[in-house]
C-alpha cells in the first residue's frame, strides 16, 4: 500500500505519542487539520494493513519489579527451528531473532522471579543442538525509543 502524505504525518504523530486527555485522537486531528472521524477511520485501515505493530502503552520493566536480559544461544544449524519454537513457548520471552553470527538465536527474557529465570535458562541450555548460551544483561539503557520518521 502506498502511504499518502497525510498517512505519514499521522503515523509520525502517533509514534511521537498519544496524550493523556479524554479525546486524544481529536487532539491529534486538530493538529493535522482534519476531523476526529478521519483520524479514527484511517487508523483502523492502517492497522488492518499491518503497518502498525502496536498502539498503546510501553512500560519500563525495571519500574514494575521485573528484570530483562538478552540471551544469545549458539545452536547447530539443523536445530535452529526446533530450539526457536521451544524458546517461543515462554510468555516471558518477548523477542526472538535468528541472526547471522555464531550465536544464531537472540532472545529477550523478562521475569520477576529469579528461580523461574534460572529454570528457563537451564532448560534452553540443555536443548538438543545448543552448545553455548550467553546471558547479557544491561546496566545502562541509552536509547530504547523505536521511531521511524516517515518523509
Amino acid at each position, binding site marked *: 500500500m502506498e502511504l499518502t502524505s497525510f498517512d505519514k504525518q499521522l503515523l509520525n504523530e502517533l509514534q511521537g505519542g498519544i496524550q493523556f486527555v479524554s479525546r486524544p485522537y481529536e487532539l491529534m486531528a486538530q493538529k493535522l487539520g482534519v476531523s476526529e472521524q478521519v483520524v479514527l477511520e484511517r487508523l483502523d485501515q492502517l492497522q488492518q494493513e499491518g503497518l502498525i505493530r502496536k498502539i498503546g502503552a510501553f512500560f519500563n520493566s525495571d519500574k514494575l519489579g521485573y528484570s530483562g536480559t538478552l540471551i544469545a544461544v549458539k545452536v547447530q544449524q539443523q536445530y535452529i527451528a526446533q530450539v526457536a519454537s521451544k524458546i517461543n513457548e515462554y510468555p516471558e520471552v518477548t523477542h526472538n531473532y535468528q541472526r547471522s553470527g555464531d550465536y544464531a538465536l537472540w532472545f529477550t527474557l*523478562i521475569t520477576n522471579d529469579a528461580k523461574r529465570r534460572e529454570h528457563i535458562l537451564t532448560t534452553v541450555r540443555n536443548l538438543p543442538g545448543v552448545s553455548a548460551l550467553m546471558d547479557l544483561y544491561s546496566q545502562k539503557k541509552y536509547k530504547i525509543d523505536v521511531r521511524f520518521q516517515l518523509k
Partner: protein
Amino acid sequence: MNISETDKKIVRAMQGAFPVCSEPYKEIAAAVGISEDALLKRLEEMKQDGTLRKMGAVLRHRQVGFKANALGTWVVPRERMDEVAEIMCAHPEVTHCYDRNTLPDWPYNFYTMIHGDTEEGCRKFAEKLSQETGIKEYSLQFTRREWKKTSMKYFME
C-alpha cells in the same frame, strides 16, 4: 518493590492494544474500576517517573521501508561509553543503544540496533559510526528471521 493493586490493574488494562475510538481512556478506566480523571492523572504520573516509557505507536519497520537491520556489537572503553552512546544515539537509524556485560570469549560491551534499506546500507552506516566514534572493534549480527515479537504482559500470574 511495592506496586499498588490499582497500578497493577492499570498496567493490565493498558498493556494490550489501545482502543481506537473517540474516548479510549473511558473504556480503560471502566475496566480498571476508577474514574477517567483518576486514570489520566495516574498515567501522567507514571509517564513522569518513567514507569510508562512510551504511550504511542510502534510501526512494523519492514512495512515502512526499513528492510534490513543488524545488531551492532562494539568494544567501547568504559570511560568513553557515555560519549560514544551520545554520538550513536543521535542517529535515527539507531533505535536501541545499551551497555551489556562481557564474557570470556565475548568482548563486546555495547549494543546498537541499526536499521537500513539493505544489508550493504547497514554495513556502510556502521562503518560511519566507527569513524565518527573511533571505535574500531565491532561486529554486525544481521537479522535473518523474526521468530517472535510481542509485548510483555505484566502481572498475569
